[in-house]
């Protein structure tokens, strides 16, 4: 079931909480406690805005176990406005074609499921930015 494993990540998955390095100001997501840029301690929590743009994207048809019910789905590398990049599904696309550079924003959605009686895992996905300006 891995309940504790997903529970531990609730701040990251539901609220996009990362870290900021107190030494070099690098914004860090996912949190890793040691700054990847300067190598010093970086445990200061940082709330990301949830806005970013598409760095690259593709569509998954042949899904791994736990994601079959959702296929086909679009996954992307999203460059957050604050600097870091993350991997996330795109959602609420409608008829809109996805493009590199497209502004997106975070929403919370169901990520995966483990059968009829299994756990539902929720977390961030990104949708086209409604207030794109």
């Amino acid at each position: 079931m891995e309940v504790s494993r997903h529970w531990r990540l609730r701040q990251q998955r539901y609220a996009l909480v990362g870290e900021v390095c107190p030494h070099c100001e690098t914004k860090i997501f996912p949190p890793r406690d040691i700054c990847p840029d300067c190598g010093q301690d970086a445990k200061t929590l940082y709330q990301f805005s949830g806005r970013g743009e598409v760095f690259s994207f593709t569509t998954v048809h042949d899904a791994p176990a736990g994601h079959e019910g959702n296929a086909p789905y679009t996954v992307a590398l999203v460059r957050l406005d604050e600097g870091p990049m993350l991997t996330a599904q795109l959602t609420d696309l409608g008829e809109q074609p996805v493009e590199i550079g497209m502004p997106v924003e975070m929403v919370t959605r169901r990520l995966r499921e483990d059968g009829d009686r299994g756990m539902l895992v929720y977390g961030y996905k990104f949708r086209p930015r409604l207030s794109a300006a």
Partner: protein
Amino acid sequence: MSPAAGFGAPSGIYVAGVGLTPVGEHWELSLREIALQAIEAARADAGGLRPQALFVGNMLAPALSGQTHLGALLADFAGLRGIEAAVFEAAGASGGAALRQACLALASGMIDSALVVGVEKITDRIGPAVNAALAGAADADYEAVQGITPTAQAALLMRRYMHEHQVPAGGLAGFALAAHANAVDNPYAIYRRRLTAEDYAGAPRISDPVTLLDAAPVADGAAALLLTRGEAYPPGAHRPAARVAASAVATSALALHDQPDPLFLSAAALACQRAYAQAGVGPKEIQLFELHDAFTVYAALALEAAGFAERGQGWRLAADGRITRDGLIPISTFGGSKARGDPGGATGVYQVAEVVLQVQGRAGPAQVQGARLGMAQCLGGAAATAVTHILTRDDSARQGSDSS
């Protein structure tokens, strides 16, 4: 020799025997049986030599076969009960990682002979289970949970690569076509047929822009190498020896999104730089390069990381026909993962075995004429681990006993 050569360089380590098995869907063979075939072939090639230690490269047995502890399993099954044995895992670079560990052990002087076997048994499981197991090479908490697969990661890289460097549609076709042409003569290859540009252009998209013909077939396979220190090398004079001239490993961020520059394979570049320094050579001296071509875009990026092309120009080597066996830098000379097949953690051992056959002049119809110095590099995950080995022909040590 450059000033850097010698620092951390392997000394007096030879490949005394290689063993290959056909990559394919082996419904009739188990994990241990495939491994045994490769082990027996390598030992026979080395004149029946009994190794002091076994280094296993494997990625998927825990997830797909419910089997850990392959060191003891395979040593025992291969009739080597009692010897030192353990398994090494670095996703698709597992085979290279096992070989690297064998080199460290031999260089330490604590053992004189080592058997390296890369083995993967994949086809007992299908579809979602295999995809989930392969996705285990990515960051489980931040990538796999989003439904990512190795194919999707290759697609993310390929789309961005083509976007940033204005690569035309079909610009990567040359990698698939050359690999398939090279596999025609390889009895161990899963696909021994040529492709045409029309085949490539018409291939179904599996994860846009990656098509079926950008992707290597993941299948069962095992390959083995028997390594010795010079003093333990089988006596005789029947064929030139292959010496390990460089052995290097480097890592980068595990998650693709954590790479500062996803289109620059920093671990691959670092492992090549270390290997070049050890061997005292540069890319100009390398006569063939067995690189990571699980997806065509990785072949382009690996050529750039290894110094054979500028950033964004690796694809042109394929488009201009310079990667064939008689080209500027031959790659995938036995078909590569694209056409020989991609047996996961075994791939790195296949690659080195192929380079050994090339520098010994034993590659048959796949021979790169005059090859004396070749390089192999396997990558794990989205290139988070890179293992690079350079093999050189060494006429000062001769090997015999082909008859045993």
